[in-house]
């Protein structure tokens, strides 16, 4: 099973890449994949994505196939799904 992860805003630099393709194995939820991506990349991405309790930070939005996911509701992933992380940005 292949899932694409895309990083937007400052998360791109934190991850060291704009996108990556992973094979998480079947049955994994988006929430578990997020935790896995943070663990795989380590800091600084972990600090951007997750708070001390391991929950998605309120300053990051996560989308699966262009629909925002709710951290409290496990979102199963399927082959070909795309997971996008977006950090809050502003004007200027």
């Amino acid at each position: 099973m292949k899932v694409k992860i895309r990083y937007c805003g400052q998360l791109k630099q934190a991850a060291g890449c704009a996108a990556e393709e992973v094979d998480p194995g079947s049955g994994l939820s988006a929430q578990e994949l997020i935790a896995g991506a943070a663990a795989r990349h380590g800091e600084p991405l972990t600090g951007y994505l997750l708070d001390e309790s391991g929950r998605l930070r309120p300053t990051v939005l996560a989308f699966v196939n262009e629909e925002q996911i709710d951290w409290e509701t496990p979102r199963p992933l399927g082959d070909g799904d795309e997971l996008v992380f977006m950090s809050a940005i502003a004007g200027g």
Partner: protein
Amino acid sequence: MIEPKSLTDEERAVYEWQMWVPEFGEEGQEKLKGASVLISRIGGLGGVVAYELAAAGVGRLVLAHAGDVKPSDLNRQLLMTHDGLGKSRVESAARRLRELNPRLEVEAVAENINEGNAAALVGSVDLVVDCAPLFEERFQMNREAKSQGKPLVECAMYEMEAQLTTFLPGETRYLHELYPEKPEWWKREFPVFGAVSGAVGCMGAMEAIKVISGIGEPLTGELLVFDLGEMRFHKMKLGPS
């Protein structure tokens, strides 16, 4: 509540091409003329929003931005000029907008949005366009807009990426609900091209025009995200809570 205003012959001549847009017409133009919009700040993003709304015939703009023009403004702040270095940003903006549209009513406020002025500034307009670089200002504008039942167009950018959405009272969350916390890593100065701020600024202006005139489909419940580095555009569906 927007009170449409009837057009003069001069205005019909100026706005002829946009009045040909289906479903817009003279009725839409009258709504723009009767509308007032707050834009803060009026730098790379807000300056282009203001310019396009002035060009489109919005009747009144309230511009809120403290400080003077700096050299680093000039890669993207299209209402500023080299001759204006060291002089008031809002005054430069007001002058440039009036050169384009002498019928425009401009209120230039040499302040950034803060707790002391947000209620009055938001209260004086029909719609807000948030172009501010600091989350404290953005949250303040959003709280007031929600509290007062005003629509708000939300524009943001970073490097070659941008985000755009429209908040409507009673229909969508506002920014402080979408992002309940300020990102600690965000800095006021960040990498960006003027073409990126210009692109999302034009789109933000079009969102404002759609909300005021009732044409098209504003980005309510959706976040437009684009990356001009890859020319990638996505409309992301925002969750209800």
